């Protein structure tokens, strides 16, 4: 094995790219869970974002239109979940699973004519002097705009939850929907907005896969990224800054195993491909050991809300 093939610069730079789709999906899901809703359909919303983003970008020629379509598709899928769980009070776990199964099927259906086609991807930003800096310039300042959008989103969510009144209300709804209802807050509206936001974020994450990271459409291309995003929210104990750390950690593992594969490591390919999933399990175990059973989860996470109760 020739480890010298692996350049730290490239590794870190590609780590950020690899982490971006998961970061987008995870930060959205974190907001949803902060509002007390457990949407297990992230994978389904991501893959719908991936296919709709790809189709829109291909048909219109505009990558940004692709991202917009992806966000919309993710939000629409999420609202389907929202209506079922918030108005029809269906079980959140079952409905989330249904959303994933449905999304995987529908995306394959919609994308059948688009397999193997290429689209124009996002260009890297050239930040002049910054991008020319040695190491840092290559690592931090010469990515495509979506990488920075995801970072901005992360920062925005952090500030929103910490400083804004709307963020406080969202947290309150997730802590105790009965108390929030008694004070006159519209629990359903808050939750539906959070669900739609989470869906849009997952959609963007999916589109980042099909428009930037790969960039192509293949069936089931999210390959569990949505589930990993869910795991990262748990890992992050529902805190935005830790979501960022978690996503980049995961991105690092994903990139490292790819690099090891190309470097011809004497480890079977299958072990390397399975590594990110095994790492996720390991991290989940470490987290649950530390946090105990309940941890920092919003108190009313996943509980159905019927206003009269």
């Amino acid at each position: 094995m020739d480890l010298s093939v692996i350049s730290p610069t490239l590794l870190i730079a590609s780590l950020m790219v690899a982490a971006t789709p998961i970061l987008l999906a995870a930060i959205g899901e974190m907001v949803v869970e902060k509002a007390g809703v457990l949407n297990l359909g992230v994978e389904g919303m991501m893959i719908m974002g991936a296919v709709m983003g790809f189709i829109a970008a291909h048909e219109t020629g505009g990558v940004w239109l692709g991202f917009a379509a992806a966000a919309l598709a993710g939000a629409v899928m999420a609202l389907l979940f929202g209506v079922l769980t918030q108005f029809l009070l269906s079980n959140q776990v079952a409905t989330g699973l249904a959303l994933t199964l449905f999304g995987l099927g529908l995306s394959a259906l919609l994308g059948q004519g688009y397999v193997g086609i290429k689209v124009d991807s996002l260009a890297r930003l050239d930040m002049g002097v910054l991008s020319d800096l040695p190491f840092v310039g290559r690592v931090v300042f010469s990515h495509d705009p979506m990488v920075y959008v995801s970072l901005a989103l992360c920062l925005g969510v952090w500030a929103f939850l910490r400083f804004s009144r709307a963020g406080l209300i969202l947290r309150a709804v997730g802590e105790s929907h009965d108390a929030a209802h008694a004070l006159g807050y519209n629990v359903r509206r808050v939750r539906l907005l959070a669900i739609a936001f989470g869906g849009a974020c997952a959609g963007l994450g999916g589109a980042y896969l099909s428009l930037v990271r790969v960039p192509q459409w293949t069936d089931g291309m999210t390959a569990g990224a949505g589930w990993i995003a869910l795991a990262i929210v748990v890992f992050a104990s529902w805190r935005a800054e830790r979501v960022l750390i978690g996503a980049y950690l995961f991105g690092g593992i994903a990139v490292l195993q790819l690099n090891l594969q190309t470097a011809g490591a004497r480890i079977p390919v299958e072990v390397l491909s399975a590594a990110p999933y095994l790492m996720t399990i390991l991290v989940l175990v470490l987290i649950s050991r530390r946090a105990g059973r309940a941890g920092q989860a919003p108190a009313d996470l996943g509980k159905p809300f019927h206003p009269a109760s």
Partner: protein
Amino acid sequence: MIALERRVAPSRAWQAIAPLLAVLLTMFAGGIMFAALGTDPFEAIRTIFWDPIFGEFAWYFRGQLLIKAGPLILIAVGLAMGFRAGIWNIGAEGQYIMGAICGAAAGLAFYPSESALIFPMMIAFGALGGFAWAMIPALLRIRFGTNEILVSLMLVYVAENVLASAAVSWLRNPDAVGFPGSRNLSRWDAAANPELIAGTGAHWGVLLAVLVVVAAQIFLTRHLMGFHIRLTGAAPLAAAFAGVRPARLVVFCLGLAGALAGLAGLFEVTGPAGQISIDFASGYGFTAIIVAFLGRLNPIGILLAGMLMALTYVGGDNVATNLGLPIAAISAFQGMLLFFLLALDVLANFRLRRSIGRRQAVTSGASPSRSVEDAPLGGAAE
């Protein structure tokens, strides 16, 4: 203006009708989807739901129905036990794969022996493989409180990698030059899982599925453990008060589901699939989740739901070959079915009520979301 009002007790009638209504609604919405794809919706629906049972080639497709329904039912019954107790094993696909690999590997270790003990031994190892794979999330949950949903799902991706490595390296047929995939087990008499009655598609796995349905039904309604499973799902605190030990339940439910999924995999790899190959995983483990819900987490219901879902598989294949629709359409169709069912479920627990006229004294307009809030739960109790 319509409001939801909680029923005092869930309506049994609605619980029974909801799946049928969901199927009808799915046919309708699916028809629209097919029309949008440029296919005659009526022909597509007929090809899916009618032709496999009553059409020209029904003699062939009916057998296919049982072949598809067997593993679905077997897996779904196990999953339903856990779902009832609030234990969410969604990694049955991985347990299915590992059961097949373990069983196949155990058998192939004795190739080409023709001992009559080989097949029973493979069955045991198949169950054990699925069981062991399911024990990973089970033990992590009871030891560390790790979320079993995520762990069991991550293990599906790990199992797929194990499958790939088995197919290309350590279980690869040494006599087949260059081709990935194991020896063909269905053509090795000692390991084969043949059709028991020609033309029916019924192999040992199908027979076991029927037995498991009956046993599970009795277990859930009559056995103390079954009662505890239902109790845990219905009221976890009351279950703790009754003395139910959650850890035992987690091990039992995940273990049972894993063993049954492993058996489903074993019967598949020794019968219809024939060998361990890269594309052995066919999504039964995920579809079984839909089957479990469609069957109301009730063994008898699962039997019917499994047959229905098998129909959409067989019919979906036909639609794909005859009408040129993509195979993926059928997954979307199945997902839709689950959605409709979940949406209709609300009617089992709540009743729709037309709100009484406009209030005279209260002038402020009622928004749709608010009217529900007038409905009682515990009524006027303070």
